[in-house]
C-alpha cells in the first residue's frame, strides 16, 4: 500500500518501527509526482536520484542502529527560493534559469543533516511576488481541489505538492502570506514562524525585513515537527534570534484551549470576506468556545494601513535585493538587440528586461520610486512609522488575549487568470496575513472546512506574540482535533481524486 496519504508523523513512526523503508516511501512519492504533477505543476525541478540516495543512506544507518532524527527518511519538497547545492534554484524567475547554487541554505543543511530526502523544488510566483503562483516564469501551479483554480501564492507549489500527496512535508517562505494563504486555499497547514526564528541564510531575498521560512504540511503536528527541525539560531543570519525554538511539538501534542483567551480582530473580517469563509470561521469560533476558550473581540485600528505600508516596504527592499541580478556573475545574460559592442550597463538592462516578469518590474519600479531622494520620507519613511503602529496594535491586543484569530484569506481559491490584470485585487488576498509580517509575529493557517458556495477549502489563521510560536500549535492542534471529530476524516479526503498517469519507472 502506498504511503502517500500518511502524515509525516505516521511515516516517521513506520520508519522507526521498520514497517517501511525510506527508499519505499520516497519512491511512492516520486511515483505520485510522476502520476499527477503533469496536471498540478507543483515542481520546477526534481531530484529523484538524490532523494533516493539520501533515503537509502538513512535506511542503512537505521539498520546499523544509529540514532536518527525523528523525521529522518521522511521526504520533503522545498520551495524554489531556497538555495540547494547541486539542485537548480530559480526562485521562479527566468533570470535564474539553470542556476545551480554552490552552497546550501541554513535550512537545507538542517534537512540534509537530519536525513530528509529532498524530492525537488516547488513552483512559486517569481521571486515570491504574488498570491496565485501565476507569476512563475515556468507556468502556474494548479489547485488540486480544482485544476482551474489557483493554489495561492507565492508558495502555491509547496501547498499543492502537499495537498496532492506528492510530498508529506514542504518548505515555504512567507513575506506577506505566501505560506499561509496557499495553505488556506489548498486545505493544508502552513506556518510562518516569528521573524528571526528560522535563518534566512540561503533564502533568495524578497524583502529582508519581512521574509520568513516555515513548514507546509497536512497536519499541525507535522508542521511542529518540521518547525522544530529548521528553527533556531544561525550566526550567519544577523537577524536570527539567539534563543531556543519555542516548544512547538509539545504544544501541538497538548492541544488544549481551555481557559485560553482568544481574540477576534475586528478589522480582519466582515466586509470583503466571502460568505462561505465567514461561515466556516464563525463555526470554528463556536467550537473553540465549546472547548473552553474565552472569545474576546479586539481592535487593531492601524491594520487599515497594513496593505499600503506593505506595498511600500516590500518593493523598496525588493528593488535593492534584486539589483544583484545583473548578468555579470551568474544567471541569464542577454545582449541588447542590434547593439554591436554593448556596454556592461546595456547588457544589464537587456538581461533584466528579458529576465524579469511584469510583476517583478512593477515592484522594482515602485520600490525605486519610494526610496528616491525627495520621496523617501513621504513613502518609505512613513511606511516604517505605520509599521511601528501596527506592531503597537498587536502589542496592545496581546495584553488582552493569548492568541488572535481571523480568516487566513478573504476568499477561497479564485480561477486562474481572473485577477492577473488587477494587481490591487490580487494584493487584497493578503490583507489578513500581512500585519503579522510587518510586526514580525508568527502565524499559522489550518483548514476549517469548505465554503458552501464553491466547495473549496477555507483557512483560519492563528497569530501569537513573537517567540510564542508554541501557542499557534496548541490552538491549531486543538481546533484541528475538534474539526476532525466533527468531520470523521481530514478535510483533504474530500478533495476530488486527481487523474493519475501511469508512472514511468
Amino acid at each position: 500500500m502506498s504511503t502517500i496519504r500518511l502524515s509525516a508523523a505516521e511515516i516517521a513512526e513506520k520508519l522507526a518501527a521498520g514497517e517501511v523503508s525510506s527508499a519505499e516511501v520516497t519512491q511512492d512519492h516520486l511515483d505520485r509526482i510522476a502520476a499527477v504533477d503533469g496536471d498540478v505543476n507543483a515542481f520546477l525541478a526534481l531530484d529523484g536520484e538524490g532523494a533516493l540516495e539520501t533515503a537509502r543512506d538513512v535506511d542503512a544507518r537505521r539498520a546499523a542502529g544509529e540514532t536518527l532524527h525523528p523525521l529522518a527518511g521522511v521526504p520533503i519538497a522545498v520551495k524554489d527560493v531556497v538555495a540547494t547545492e547541486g539542485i537548480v534554484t530559480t526562485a521562479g524567475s527566468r533570470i535564474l534559469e539553470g542556476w545551480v547554487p554552490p552552497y546550501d541554505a541554513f535550512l537545507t543543511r538542517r534537512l540534509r543533516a537530519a536525513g530528509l530526502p529532498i524530492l525537488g523544488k516547488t513552483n512559486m510566483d517569481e521571486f515570491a511576488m504574488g498570491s496565485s503562483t501565476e507569476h512563475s516564469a515556468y507556468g502556474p501551479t494548479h489547485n488540486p481541489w480544482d485544476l482551474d483554480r489557483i493554489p495561492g501564492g507565492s508558495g502555491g507549489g509547496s501547498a499543492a505538492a502537499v495537498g496532492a500527496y506528492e510530498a508529506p512535508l514542504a518548505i515555504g517562505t512567507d513575506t506577506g502570506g505566501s505560506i499561509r494563504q496557499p495553505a488556506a486555499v489548498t486545505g493544508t497547514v502552513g506556518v510562518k514562524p516569528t521573524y528571526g526564528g528560522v535563518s534566512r541564510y540561503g533564502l533568495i531575498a524578497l524583502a529582508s525585513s519581512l521574509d520568513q521560512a516555515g513548514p507546509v504540511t497536512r497536519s499541525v503536528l507535522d508542521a511542529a515537527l518540521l518547525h522544530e527541525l529548521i528553527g533556531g539560531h544561525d550566526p550567519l543570519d544577523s537577524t536570527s534570534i539567539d534563543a531556543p525554538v519555542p516548544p512547538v511539538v509539545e504544544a501541538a501534542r497538548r492541544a488544549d484551549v481551555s481557559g485560553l483567551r482568544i481574540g477576534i480582530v475586528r478589522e480582519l473580517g466582515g466586509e470583503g470576506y466571502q460568505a462561505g469563509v465567514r461561515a466556516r470561521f464563525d463555526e470554528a469560533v463556536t467550537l473553540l468556545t465549546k472547548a473552553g476558550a474565552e472569545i474576546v473581540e479586539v481592535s487593531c485600528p492601524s491594520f487599515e494601513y497594513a496593505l499600503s505600508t506593505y506595498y511600500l516596504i516590500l518593493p523598496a527592499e525588493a528593488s535593492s535585493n534584486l539589483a544583484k541580478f545583473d548578468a555579470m556573475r551568474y544567471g541569464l545574460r542577454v545582449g541588447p538587440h542590434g547593439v554591436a559592442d554593448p556596454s556592461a550597463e546595456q547588457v544589464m538592462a537587456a538581461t533584466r528586461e528579458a529576465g524579469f516578469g511584469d510583476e517583478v518590474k512593477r515592484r522594482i519600479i515602485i520600490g525605486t520610486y519610494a526610496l528616491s531622494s525627495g520621496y523617501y520620507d513621504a513613502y518609505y519613511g512613513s511606511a516604517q512609522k505605520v509599521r511601528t503602529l501596527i506592531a503597537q496594535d498587536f502589542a496592545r491586543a496581546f495584553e488582552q488575549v493569548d492568541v488572535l484569530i481571523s480568516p487566513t484569506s478573504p476568499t477561497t481559491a479564485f480561477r486562474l487568470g481572473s485577477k492577473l490584470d488587477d494587481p490591487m485585487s490580487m494584493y487584497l488576498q493578503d490583507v489578513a496575513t500581512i500585519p503579522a509580517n510587518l510586526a514580525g509575529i508568527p502565524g499559522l493557517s489550518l483548514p476549517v472546512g469548505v465554503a458552501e458556495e464553491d466547495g473549496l477549502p477555507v483557512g483560519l489563521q492563528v497569530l501569537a506574540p513573537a517567540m510564542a510560536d508554541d501557542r499557534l500549535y496548541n490552538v491549531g492542534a486543538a481546533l484541528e482535533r475538534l474539526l476532525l471529530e466533527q468531520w470523521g476524516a481530514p478535510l483533504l479526503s474530500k478533495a476530488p481524486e486527481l487523474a493519475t498517469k501511469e508512472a514511468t519507472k
Partner: protein
Amino acid sequence: MTATRTELVPFDAALETYDPAMGLEVHVELNTASKMFCGCSTVFGAEPNTQVCPTCLGLPGALPVVNGKAVESAIRIGLALNCSIAPWSRFARKNYFYPDMPKNFQTSQYDEPIAYDGWTEVTVETDEGPRVFRIDIERAHMEEDTGKSLHVGGSTGRIHGADHSLVDYNRAGIPLIEVVTKPILGAGKYAPLVARAYVASLRELVKALDVSDARMEQGSMRCDVNLSLAPSGSDVLGTRSETKNVNSLRSVERAVRYEVERHAGILDAGQKVVQETRHWHEDTGVTTSGREKSDAEDYRYFPEPDLVPVAPSDAWVEELRATLPEPPAERRARLQAEWGYSDLEMRDVVGAGAIDLIEATISAGATPTAARKWWLGDLARRANDTATPIDELGVTPTQVAEVQALVDAKRINDKLARQVFDGLVAGEGTPEEIVAARGLEVVSDDGALAAAVDRAIEANPDVADKIRDGKVAAAGALIGAVMKDMRGQADAGRVRELIIEKLS
C-alpha cells in the same frame, strides 16, 4: 556641461583674490584578517577571485555578518580623532549599478555613522615658522570595498577604448573606514600643505593604531579632495570639485594646488565651476573631468535590513580608549627630547618614515646618533634608489644595532659597514656571518699593517719626506695608499699612528 577651457591662474595670484575651502575624504582599508561581512581572507595580491564566498560575491540568498574586529578598529580610529562614538548606529545600502559591485549596492553607513564630531591638529611650516591647524572631523564610518575592474585592450587602462573588462572580487567586501573632514577654511596659501599634513598625520595615526597598513601606493589608503574657492572674505562656500583617488602625499598637495589654479581660472573668466568628479593624473599633474554630479546622483540610501544595529557598550568603548597609543604628535615630541635631535633632524626622520625603526634600533643598543646616521644615510638612500619602502629593505633595526656594535668594536669601519648592508639586503645572513663570509673584518695585525705602511712609504718617498719634515697633514695620502693596499680592511686611525711612529 563642462565649462569652456580656461587658463590656469598662478597659485599665488589666485590666493590674492580667493579663499580656498577643502574637504578631505580618506578611505582607510583595515588590516583585519577577514572581510567586513564574511570570513574571506583579505591578504593583498592573491590570485584573482580566490578570496570569495557566496556573501562577498553577492550570490542569491547569502547574508552579511558584521566583522567585530572592524567595528573595534572603527571605534579606535574614531576615538583617536577625538570623535563621539554613537551608542547605536546602523548600516545602510547605497544603491547603484556597477559591474565590480557584487550586490549592486554598497553596504555603508549613511546618516548614522559610528563616529562623529571629532578633530585633530596638524603642524605646517609657514613663513612665520611652524603653525598648528585644527582639522574638524565630520564623521568616520564603516563600509565595504568594491571589487576591482581591469579594463583590457585600451591604451589608457581606463574603461574608454577598452576591448573587454575583467573583475577581481578579492577586494569586494574588504573593510574600509571613511574619514570625512568638515570644510577646512582659512588655510589660505598653506592649503596644499595642510591637506598633505592632514593625510600624513592620518596615515601615521592608523599605523600607530595598527589598524591599517595605510599604503597609499597599494590603494589601502585613498584620498578624495574636495575643493572650492570663494572670493576673499566671503562666508559663502563656492561650488566644489571632487578629485578622486589622489594616492600619494605629494599628489594631495599638488592636486589641491592645481584645483586652486583651475578654479581661479574659471572664476576669473566669469564662468561657473561645474560640480563634478575629477580624475587626478599623477604623470601630468592635472585633473580632468569625470562624472558630472550636477544632477546629484540618487543612491536611494535606506537602512540595511539584513543587519542589526551596531550598539557598542560604554564599557567596551572605554576599554578601547584605554588601548589607544600615545598620540603621534606627543610621541614625536617625547622621542625628540629623549634622542636629542634638532627640529630639522626630527623632521627628516619623520619624513623618511623612520621613527619606529630608529626607536627599535636604539632599544637594540645603538646610540640615537648612530641610529639616525644609518637610517637616514645609507639605508634611506637604498630605499630611495630602489623605490622600496624603508621598512621593507630587508634590514632590521636589530641588525643595524649589530652593525654599529661591530663598528664600535673597531672590527669594521663605516665603509665596510655599507658592504655588510649589501649583504643584509641580499639575504646573506647575520652581520657577523656576512663579515666572516665576505672577509670584511679590519686587519688589526700590526705586522701586516706595518708591512703595508713600509710599502707605502717606499712608493711615496716625497710624501714621506714631508711628514718627516713635520707636515703631518700629508699623512692622508699615505693612509689612503695603505687602505687601498689593505682593500679597505684597516682601521684608518691605527694606520695613521703607525705612519707617524715610523717617520718621526
